[in-house]
Every structure is written in C-alpha cells, then in structure tokens.
C-alpha cells in the first residue's frame, strides 16, 4: 500500500495535467470515429474494440471502411503497417528511456500513439516521481480518453434513426486536412507531389480494388530515388529541421512527419502552444509535437530544459 501512496499516485498527479489538452481532442475525434464506423453499418462495439486493438486514429478510420468491403486481412496488415510506419521513429527516440522502466514498457510501447509520444518525449517527471509510472499514466489516460470518445460516438451513432448517405466523406476530409497540415510545414513538397502522382498512376493501372499496395511500393521507391535532391533542399532551407526525426500532430492520432520543418514555423508553433486551442483536437498536441521536432533536431535544446 505504501508503494501506491509514494510511487503510483504521485506519478498520476504529475501526469494528469499534461494530458488535459488531449482529453478534449481525443473525446471529440474518438466520437467522430465511433459515429463514422456505426453509420457505415458496423456493430456498436467495433469502435471500442478498435480503440483497444489498434489505438491509432487514422488507421481506425481506414480499417472501419475496410470492414464493410471484401475480406482481405493481409492487405489490411500491409496497409496499416505502412500508414503507421511513422511510429517507428517514435520508438527510436525513446529507446533508452523505455529500457529503464521494466515491464511497464510493454504497455507503454503498445500505446505509443502520436499524442502520447509527443507528451512523453517533451516532458520529464518532477523530481522524485518515478518515470515509468509517469509515462504509464500518460499512456493510460490518453487511451482512456480515446476509448471513451469512440464508445460514446458509437452509442450516439447507433441511436441515430437513419443511415446517412455520404458519411464516409469524413474520412476523405480527415486525410485531406492531415495532408494540408503536412504541406504547410514542409520546405520541399517534392515527395508529397510525387506520392500523389504515384497514387493516381497506380490507381489508373491497377484499379480501385488492388492499387494501394503497388502505390505504397512505388512511393517508397520514388522517395528513395529522390533523396539526393530532396535532402539538400531541406538542409538549405532549414538548419534546425534537417535533423528532425518526426513529429506527431493530428487529432485522431495521425501524426505526420515533416520532411524538414521550417524553423520559424516550429518557433511559431512552440510559442502558440500555450494558447487555448479551441476545439483543437490537434492544436494542443501539435505544440508539443513541434517542440519535439525542435528538441529532436537540436540536442542542446533538450539540455536547456
């Protein structure tokens, strides 16, 4: 019992305030995801199940739309693997810290969504508070908000009287907005434009049912081939961001990494971080993500903190 009082609860008290900006964003975006899935015709418990089994916003929208199509778990696996590939870079940034927290790391790694990562990366527990429990509570609180939002949305969607024609456009809009958010923060749009062209080309050649995996392969090949032109452009326009590994961002757990964040944008974002974020599913988390982008790009920055 003493351990709970001296270790577990102080970590919860330290972690909770950091998750408040995520609370509003996750509940609202989670509700959108829940309503979306149920209006597609899926059972009411599917959004909650996905919130536990997947716990990655944009992936859950995508999987919900796959669940009403043809059965193809291999394609689902490959698609989600690539859509969530940005998570690889979160783990890389937390390797050492997670190694020190014992068995709790298994949960914290599983729950490492964009927003959770951005908080955990950018913050340290107060003196005397256990880092493992601190990160555990941040992860658990954030996942709780997301599960709550998805469940509320599903229950709300289930009592709506009619199926709404065209509700799937919410997913199109979500991805469009994440794309724009990415666009406004990258110094070179070359890979993004090439990705769009590659996607359209793959759609034209392979057709609507099977184009996504060929498109992903094509994008990977094109991105690697463009490296020698894109990377110097980034380095020239952005001294800080050239080394930024990634960052998180969008509300539903869709982090987006910027191929070179412009340093003044990063500054703006960091300064804007403490402003009230409106409905900001994303804005609250974004400040920290940008701060992370800066921290990752500038080792001295972290030491200053």
């Amino acid at each position, binding site marked *: 019992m003493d351990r709970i009082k001296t270790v577990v609860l102080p970590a919860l008290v330290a972690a909770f305030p950091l998750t408040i900006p995520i609370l509003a964003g996750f509940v609202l975006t989670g509700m*959108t995801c829940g309503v979306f899935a149920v209006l597609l015709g899926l059972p009411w418990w*599917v959004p909650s*199940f996905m919130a536990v089994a*997947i716990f990655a916003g944009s*992936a859950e929208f995508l*999987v919900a739309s*796959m669940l009403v199509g*043809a059965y*193809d*778990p291999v394609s*689902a696996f*490959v698609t*989600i693997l*690539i859509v*969530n590939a*940005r998570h*690889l*870079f979160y*783990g*890389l940034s937390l*390797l050492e810290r*997670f190694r020190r927290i014992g068995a709790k790391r298994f949960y914290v*790694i*599983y729950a490492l969504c964009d927003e959770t990562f951005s908080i955990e990366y950018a913050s340290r527990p107060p003196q005397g508070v256990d880092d493992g429990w601190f990160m555990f509570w941040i992860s658990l609180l954030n996942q709780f908000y997301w599960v709550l939002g998805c469940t509320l949305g599903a229950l709300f969607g289930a009592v709506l009287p009619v199926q709404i*024609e065209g509700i*799937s*456009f*919410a997913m*199109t*809009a*979500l*991805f*469009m*907005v994440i*794309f*724009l*958010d*990415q666009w406004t923060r990258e110094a070179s749009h070359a*890979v*993004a434009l090439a990705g*769009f062209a590659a*996607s359209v080309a793959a*759609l034209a050649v392979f057709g609507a049912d099977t184009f*996504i995996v060929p*498109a992903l392969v094509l*994008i*990977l090949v094109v*991105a690697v081939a463009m490296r020698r032109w894109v990377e110097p452009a*980034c380095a020239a326009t952005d001294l800080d961001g050239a*080394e930024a*590994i*990634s960052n998180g961002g969008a509300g539903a757990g869709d*982090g*987006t*990494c*910027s*191929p070179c964040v412009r340093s003044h944008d990063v500054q703006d974002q960091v300064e804007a971080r403490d402003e009230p974020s409106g*409905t900001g*599913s*994303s804005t609250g988390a974004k400040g920290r993500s940008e701060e992370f982008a800066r921290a990752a790009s500038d080792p001295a920055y972290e030491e200053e903190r």
Partner: protein
Amino acid sequence: MTLDQQIVTVLAAGAATILTRALPFLVFPASRPVPGLIRYLGRALPGAIFALLVVYCLREVNILAPSEVIPQVAGLATATALFLWRRDMLIAIFGSTAVYLILVNLVFVS
C-alpha cells in the same frame, strides 16, 4: 464480411500497429545508430502517404459523372479553405462533411 472476418481484420491491423511501435526496440539494441536513409524516410514519406490516402478515399468516384465529382471537389475545397483559414482540423472536417452531405442528399439526388 462475417463477424469473425471483421475481428481478424481488426486484429491484423492491430498487429501491424504494434509492430511499428515495437520494432525499434527489437532492431536497435543499446545505442546502435539509426541509418540516415531511415531518418530521411521518416521525414519524407508522410506527405506522400497522406496524399495516397486521399486518392484511396476517392478511388471509386466516377470522374465522368458530375453528380459524383462536384460534391467531392466542393467538399475538398471546403476542407482546404476552412483548414487554411482556421487551422483547426475538426472545424475543417465537420464543415466540409456538412457541405458534402448537403450536396449529395439534397442537390444531386439520384
């Protein structure tokens, strides 16, 4: 899809997600340096991947049918304008979805 098939699909997507989160801990013991190519891809790919996801959402639109194309274009234009104006994802998503729903259900009724 049957119920079992839906559960398998969700679990496959969950396994893929966990793999992306756990792989660095399996591949890079201690402080083995991360290759430059991997770091470059982490920065360069997301824009392209979200462009692909937009195309994926539009894959079944018949580009020769104005009643399909116009609501999509109007919705995407609304999302773009709202996002650039307010910089708020939820406002952009709800606003553009509303425009799309109105067009599809009230204007271009088939």
